[in-house]
Every structure is written in structure tokens, then in C-alpha cells.
């Protein structure tokens, strides 16, 4: 057997990078949870805490010029794809030096230089975008791939079905990731769909559909590696469903009356992706506890710095209202 992308053993450096990515997302989101409550942050935020292993597991296989299309819950995807967390924090605070000059906010963070096509306020909006860039990559003859992220609610949108059909019909190098956290806003999945396994829908579009545990970085990493390799080599699209839990509400301020009282507490105790990752890499002797502790410390300080600077940064001035209105290509 030839060595394949998904099969390669992760180096220590790659393991530490993956942990740093997950820790950065977690601290970024936990901090936003606290800061949003103070009323200083404009607009809405939807937090990715609990789902970090998915972003880290997929993005570990992507190059800078590969594309991703995110969701309203997009901070984790952006950080893992290489967007600057500080510029993101500025953006969320609506500041002039934000990644989109403070005009996008949490739900419209984008960085085309990093292949991040944007968080997206349109539920089910990502899959059509990756069909577009997937077609572009195929037409230009590059080996770029495009990955969309969609929730279990978004998975029921017509746009998603149309995209699956198009990607399949045209053999596009697209991977459709379903982050199934069990709730479409406040609606439990069983109320809105007959099937719990969304990946089974891939069968109807003649593409492979696989289910993995979205709390397990290694499970995501392995399946993602194979799907991405397949797409790069001309094998067409795949769907990967990651079963996961979110730690916070649909949006900040969501009272979450639809969840059991101890639901999140149980998940945090048993399935926390950072805890599982730490336990496994240290017991396998690949990484020392102290090395992970050091990352925790560095990330904590960095996120403090991001928030501190974002709060102090200047707002856009009225004249910025008329800039960035039109895009030029």
C-alpha cells in the first residue's frame, strides 16, 4: 500500500499545532461568552466551543490556497484556517482594523487570502459557495479543494441538496462537512428530520458519506484526510458528518430551555475534545503535559491581549461608510 495523506502519523509538531488551534478557539469563544454579556460587542455571536476538533481535524489537511466556506458559527473555522485571531477579535468588536474593517462582525468574518470565504448568515449558504470555487479549481486545473461546513439545521436547506447534486454531477473537489450538534437553533434534530445520520443522504447523490465522532480529533483527522485526498485526486465530493455538542446556546443570550439541565455538563466531563486529546497524546508518550500547559498559558495571555487591544482600538469613522462597497476582481 502506498502511504496516503490520512494515514500519515502526526509529528509532535503537528500534534502541538492541533492542540494550540483547539485551545485558541476554545479560549477565544469562552472569552467572548464573558465579554458579550457586558454589552460591549455589537451584533450577534454564535460560539463554536465544544466543536473545535472538527475545525482542527479538517484544517490540518488544508493548504492556504484551499477554500473553506463557514457558517454563522464561524470563529473556529476561521482560526483553524489561519485567520489572525487578533484581527478577528477587532472585527467582532466592530473596529476599524478588524479583518473586514469592522464592517462584517462575527457573522461575516472572511479572509480571502487565507481561503476563508466567510462566515455566513445564510443557513445552508456555504455549500453553493464551495461548488463555485470547486468548479473554479477544476477548471483552472489546480489541485485545490473546497470544504463547506453546515449544521444539522442547515443540512435540511434546499441549497445544500442542490449543491450535493451539482458537486456530484460535475465531480467537484468538494467536501461537505455536517457539524451535527443536535439542534437547529432550539429545535432538536429528531423534530425536524426523520434521519439522525445526515451522512446517509450522500448515498442519494452517489458520493461516500461517513459519520465520525466530532469530539475526537483523531477520528476527524483520519476521515478528513481521506476525503480531502480523494477530492484532490479527482475522486469527487464526499460528505462527512461529525457528531458533536456545542457548549453554549445557539447564540449568546439563548436561555437554552430546550436542553436538559445537566446536558452540557455531562458532555464537558466526558467528551471534551481538548481533554480527550490531552489524555491520549500524553498517555501515548507523544507529548508532555508541561508542553500542553505551556500552550494553555500562552494562548490565555494572547487572548487577553486580543481583547484588551480590541477594546482600545479605534472605531471606523463616518467616511469609512462609503468604502469597501464594491468588490473589484
Amino acid at each position: 500500500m502506498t502511504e496516503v495523506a490520512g494515514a500519515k502519523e502526526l509529528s509532535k509538531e503537528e500534534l502541538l499545532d492541533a492542540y494550540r488551534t483547539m485551545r485558541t478557539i476554545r479560549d477565544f469563544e469562552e472569552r467572548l461568552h464573558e465579554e458579550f454579556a457586558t454589552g460591549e460587542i455589537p451584533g450577534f455571536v454564535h460560539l463554536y466551543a465544544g466543536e473545535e476538533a472538527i475545525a482542527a481535524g479538517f484544517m490540518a489537511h488544508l493548504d492556504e490556497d484551499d477554500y473553506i466556506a463557514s457558517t454563522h458559527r464561524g470563529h473556529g473555522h476561521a482560526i483553524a484556517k489561519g485567520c489572525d485571531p487578533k484581527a478577528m477579535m477587532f472585527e467582532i468588536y466592530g473596529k476599524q482594523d478588524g479583518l473586514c474593517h469592522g464592517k462584517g462582525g462575527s457573522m461575516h468574518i472572511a479572509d480571502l487570502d487565507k481561503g476563508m470565504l466567510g462566515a455566513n448568515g445564510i443557513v445552508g449558504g456555504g455549500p453553493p459557495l464551495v461548488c463555485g470555487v470547486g468548479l473554479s479549481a477544476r477548471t483552472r486545473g489546480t489541485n485545490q479543494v473546497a470544504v463547506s461546513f453546515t449544521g444539522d439545521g442547515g443540512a435540511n436547506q434546499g441549497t445544500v441538496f442542490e449543491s450535493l447534486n451539482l458537486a456530484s454531477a460535475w465531480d467537484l473537489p468538494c467536501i461537505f462537512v455536517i457539524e451535527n450538534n443536535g439542534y437547529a437553533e432550539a429545535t432538536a434534530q429528531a423534530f425536524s428530520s426523520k434521519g439522525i445520520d445526515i451522512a446517509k443522504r450522500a448515498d442519494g447523490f452517489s458520493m461516500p458519506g461517513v459519520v465520525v465522532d466530532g469530539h475526537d480529533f483523531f477520528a476527524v483527522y483520519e476521515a478528513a484526510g481521506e476525503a480531502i485526498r480523494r477530492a484532490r485526486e479527482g475522486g469527487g465530493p464526499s460528505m462527512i458528518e461529525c457528531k458533536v455538542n456545542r457548549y453554549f446556546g445557539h447564540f449568546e443570550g439563548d436561555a437554552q430551555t430546550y436542553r436538559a439541565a445537566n446536558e452540557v455538563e455531562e458532555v464537558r466531563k466526558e467528551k471534551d475534545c481538548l481533554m480527550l486529546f490531552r489524555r491520549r497524546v500524553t498517555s501515548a508518550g507523544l507529548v508532555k503535559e508541561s508542553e500542553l500547559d505551556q500552550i494553555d498559558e500562552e494562548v490565555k495571555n494572547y487572548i487577553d491581549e486580543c481583547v484588551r487591544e480590541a477594546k482600545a482600538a479605534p472605531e471606523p469613522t463616518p467616511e469609512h461608510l462609503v468604502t469597501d462597497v464594491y468588490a473589484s476582481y
Partner: protein
Amino acid sequence: MSGAVTVGVIANPASGRDIRRLVSGASVFDNGEKGNMVYRLMVGLAAVGVEHVLMMPAASGLYDSLERTLRAAAPAIAAEHRPMPDLELIEMKVRHNARDTIYAISEMEHRGVAAILVLGGDGTSRIVARHCARDIPLCTLSTGTNNAFPEMREATVAGIATGLVATGRIGDEALRREKILRVGLNGDAHHDCALVDVAMNSERFVGARALWRPREISEIVVSSARPDAVGLSSIAGLLDPTSRDAPHGLHIRLAPPEDAEIVLTVPLAPGLVVPIGVNEVNRIEPGASVELTAGVGSVALDGEREIEISAADEVEVRLDLAGPLTIDVSAAMREAARRGLLNGSL
């Protein structure tokens, strides 16, 4: 309900969706079909007098498909006075993981089911075998890929065979005591088990679970081995075919093909035929313990990585002839024919 014969049904809605669909073109088995299989089982069970079916709740469209088929068939069943068992779902919190199956089994035991029908792959069969009382007959039907233990069978016939056993009309002639591999870890002799194969491999993490990269496998122990099987046990099957009834198992040490004494061409998974190097084959006797050479890696049970280990861990495998009791559908139907049990109308 007293007097009525009850049969349990465990249908795993999650089987058949692992990474092999991505890497080796493995087949897909949709939940609509699994629901239809349960309907066909019920028809078979009813035909031989089973009046009650107690089923684990099955999400993911499986139960919906069953319910729709039952609803659509109800008028004709009533008009033609055809029998159909009552269907009762176990009242339980569904977690969509193996704990559902474990809870459902305990409830079925408590309710005195006469047999349990299991729809799933090797993993589902293994969980049922591990947690089920020894004397409840199981009929395990394959709904996954690469299954060595459950059989691919028409559910209607499996339902008839199971019903004949459950109602007491056929007994030992159609029952088989299966072998089981007890897997010990660091002195805990009953840490886990496997029905067909245990494989030591160097995949460090359980990851996507299915064991599909042959270079990583260093050692296997099998309870039985057919040369026409697909999967790890087929390695053993090509070396020393070992039936389910044979009172021994096999222990095989693998090596990279370039360094091995024997090289076999093996269908390791659906869509994956690879050279496998073998250095040593030994029969293992019941009760005797085989110590596996532990390294950093994991132990796969019936083809799925389950236990992450380090070189310091001690892993041993023991062949136990007193595994689960299963229904041999072919034997049951042969006996039914011989004794004329299905002669006459329903």
C-alpha cells in the same frame, strides 16, 4: 401479555457508515432497508406464533420506515386475517451509542424474551454477546460491511427460524454455542471480548475505528476462519480454515511482505485486496492464554480499533468455547422441513 411469546429486536441504526465507504468503496445499507428488514422479521415470527416483539427504539429513519410499512400493510393484514405480532418499543432514554444496546438487552432479559434478533455489524453483535445472558438464543443478521459474525440472510426466513426456536418447537438441533475471544488488559481478564478476531496493530489512536491499513497489523487471534470470508479472519482462513464448531482458534504473527516467510493475497476489506506477510501460525486451545506482543498502538476487536495501548500494557487473549448461543437458521429450517413444522396453512 402473560403466555405470549416475546422476541426482542435490536436494530442498530448507526451501523454501516464508517470510513470504509471513503477508502475502499464499501457498500451502503440504508436505514429504510433495516426498517423493512424488521417488518419482514415480524412477518416471519408471526407465521410461527410469536405474538409480541419488544424492540429497542431505533432512530435515524429506521423505526419510521418500519412504522410506515406496518401502517400501509395493516388493512390487508386485517382483511386477510394474517397474524402480526404486537410491536412494543422499550421505554428508554436514547443516547445514540452502545449504551442504548446494553440497556435494551437488560430490559429484554428482565421481560423474559425467548430470543433476540440482532441487526447490525460485527460491532453490534459483539456488544450483544458481551452483555446478554448466556442462554438467550440470538439470531444475528448482517447490516454492515465486512462482517465475519452476523449472517447475510433474508429476514423473513430468519424470523421464521427464530420464531420456531422462541416458541419451543425447535431446540438444540438449531442452536450453536459460539466461541468467543476474551481480551484481558493488565490483569483484568474480562476487559473486553471479540467474536471472531483480535488484532494488535500500530495505529496509535482509535480514530475512525475501522482497521483498514494492513501494514499496521502485527498479530491476530481468531476464533474461526473461513477462506471465503472478507476481513482479518480471511488471513487465517487461507492458512488453516477453522470452522465455528472447531474446538480451537488460531494465533498468527504477521510481517511486512518483503520480510515474511509466507505472503498471501487477502481480501482485507470490501474493495481492498492486499499482500499480507505471515511469519507464524499456531493453533490455540480453549482456556489457554495468548499474550500479545504489546507496542504503542491499539487493539482492534472484530475489525474495529477499540483499545489504545502502550508498550507497558499487557494484553492477553483467551479462547472461550462458552460464548453466545446463536440460532443456526439453515439448521432450523432443515429441521422444520424434516418434521413438517410448516406443513399446512397459517
